[in-house]
């Protein structure tokens, strides 16, 4: 099963390789990974997506927690959460497809961030399923380049 794990860690040199080394050394897989500092510049938030049976996920969270630089580990999927990814996609846009591309982007609430006579670069954000849907639609038109972030996630606030 897919799990999205959020890790707060001290922002120190080498800390990312402690996390990735743990995964490679123990044969756990990382599907995506995204990391940036939080409001406190001394603390980073790392979001990673991994897959595995429950005992493996339990080991992953425990092993992460065991790293000395790790402050907190949360399996975000244990409650309701919002997840987002971003993709920058350069898609072929010649005279006969330019309008079509813009329509598609509009439907997915994307933005054109770079324009050239023969292409658009567009920015799409959303859950992974939405990014996939956009890619599927744009593929026949001609995707020239694609860059994606890893997933970031946040638990929903309690409603009451």
């Amino acid at each position, binding site marked *: 099963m897919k799990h999205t794990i959020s890790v707060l860690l001290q922002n120190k040199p*080498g800390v990312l390789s402690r996390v990735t080394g743990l995964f490679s050394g123990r044969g756990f897989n990382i599907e995506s990974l995204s990391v940036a500092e939080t409001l406190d510049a001394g603390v980073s938030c790392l979001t990673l997506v991994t897959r595995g049976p429950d005992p493996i996920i339990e080991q992953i969270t*425990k092993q992460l927690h*065991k790293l000395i630089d790790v402050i907190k580990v949360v399996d975000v999927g244990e409650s309701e959460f919002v997840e987002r990814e971003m993709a920058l996609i350069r898609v072929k846009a010649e005279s006969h497809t330019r309008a079509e591309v813009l329509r598609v982007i509009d439907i997915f609430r994307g933005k054109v961030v770079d324009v050239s006579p023969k292409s658009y670069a567009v920015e799409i954000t959303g859950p992974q399923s939405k990014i996939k849907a956009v890619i599927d639609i744009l593929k026949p038109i001609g995707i020239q380049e694609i860059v994606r972030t890893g997933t970031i996630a946040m638990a929903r606030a309690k409603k009451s």
Partner: protein
Amino acid sequence: MKVTGAEAIVKCLEEQGVEVIFGFPGGVIIDLFDELEKSDITNVLVRHEQAAVHAADAYGRVKGEVGVALVTSGPGATNTVTGIASAYCDSIPMVVFTGQVPTGLIGNDAFQEVDIIGITRPCTKHNYLVKDPKDLAETIREAFYVARTGRPGPVLIDLPKDVVVAKAKFPEPKPVKMQTYRPTYEPHPGQIAKACKEILKAKKPVIYAGGGVIASDSNEELTELATKLNIPTTMTLMGLGGFPGTHKLSMGMLGMHGTYFANMAVSQCDLLIAVGARFDDRVTGKLADFAPHAKIIHVDIDPTSISKNVKVDIPIVADCKYALTAMNRWFDVQEDFNGKEQGEKLGPWLDEINSWKRDHPLGYVEEGDIIKPQFVVQKLHEMTNGDAIISTEVGQNQMWAAQFYHFNKPRHFLTSGGLGVMGYGFPAAIGAQMAAPDKIVIDVAGDGSIQMNIQELATARQYKCPVKIAILNNGYLGMVRQWQELFYDKRYAGTDLEVSPDFVKLAEAYGAVGLRATKVSEVEPVIKEALATDNTVFMDFVIAREEGVYPMVPAGKATTEMLLS
């Protein structure tokens, strides 16, 4: 007050109570050796950095303190990796200092530069590169704290040359507080109660004790629990000495070369109480058939050890000493608990175990004049009243020592359990002797593994360590040969040590004493002379060439599928 990095390091070592370190100098770390020379700390100059780390490991084990090793950059640092990895597997508290090229040169492929932080990241509990002299003291204090607390382990500090030389303010000591690292010592009372109720219900309980009992100094608490409830107890290799080996409730070691009765008891028990052990594959054999009828209680300070290999019913995350004390107190305050009745209730179970003991005791077949290795270990036990500190190399020698030297006390058996390092035993014996100058220290070795750190003869002599090395000499890499005999149609590929030194002459060349026994009648006199000699002694026991270690559970088989001879 401003001090140099070297001065700060020495002050910190003194603050931590360090008396002995094991080291080997080099270009970038001369300043620190220079400073150490002015202090009261003894530097034991080893002849290879790997030996420094094994010696520090053993020193720490014997004293129950943090061992310290100090080496230079580059090859000095890489030579420590095996020792660090071994200490990591065995949860041994240790701080290793490595020299490093000046900060300005890091990343430039400088002479004797290596990314030792990157290399040791997966085999240390934590490691630090100190880039700013003013961080030095607090980093060292934190390193010692991390090494000795929680599940202990090795910590490495990389010291660039300029940091060792630079002057900075020396911060006054204060208790270490870490935001991200707070090991759990106290058990959850609810879990303790649950576990104790389960123990009362059990008809066939077994205690399975590991190195955590030694690390937490909870052998007395463990013995109290086992005797209070009459529970038969088995130990892992790392747990030997955690429960008296000659006690009537002791079943000796379990696992691949464990006793028949320990493995049978685990396979038949209805409750397995694991204390400071980690369900290693050498203990469990085929996982699906390990303790198949048992509920499992698992006490461990490291949450990652729990339910890693075997699903646990009652996990207790705690220091073994705290958890065992809490369990003992729980029984003490139960009004309807009657130790005698409890003991009687387990009578049939103990009878069953005793009948396994009678049917298949640990043993070996005598062969006239030919020396059997088990006999040598038995004699060592007998002639030292079971009170010596025994280190081992790895292989058959290690298993014979574990099986036949019935350890009654903790911190008396030193072996590379998890990583299985040939070459551990001799430097470990030196480290142990430095920690306990008045004890008899014996390295039970093989003729293969002793050669992996044999250069330490010079260290033993230089520091007047009267360690005794009992070489069980069969001319083979015996454990691999045994596997080849059993599973590879006796094709002894790469295991026949056709050429070896004359160990007696070799010892003499170093100014040590060499003795040899080639027949049974010579064993006792050789040991007697060795024990009476106030010098390093090599005892070369020429043993039965193809003797095997039994019982043996073939790799991947259930622990009940033991080969008995």
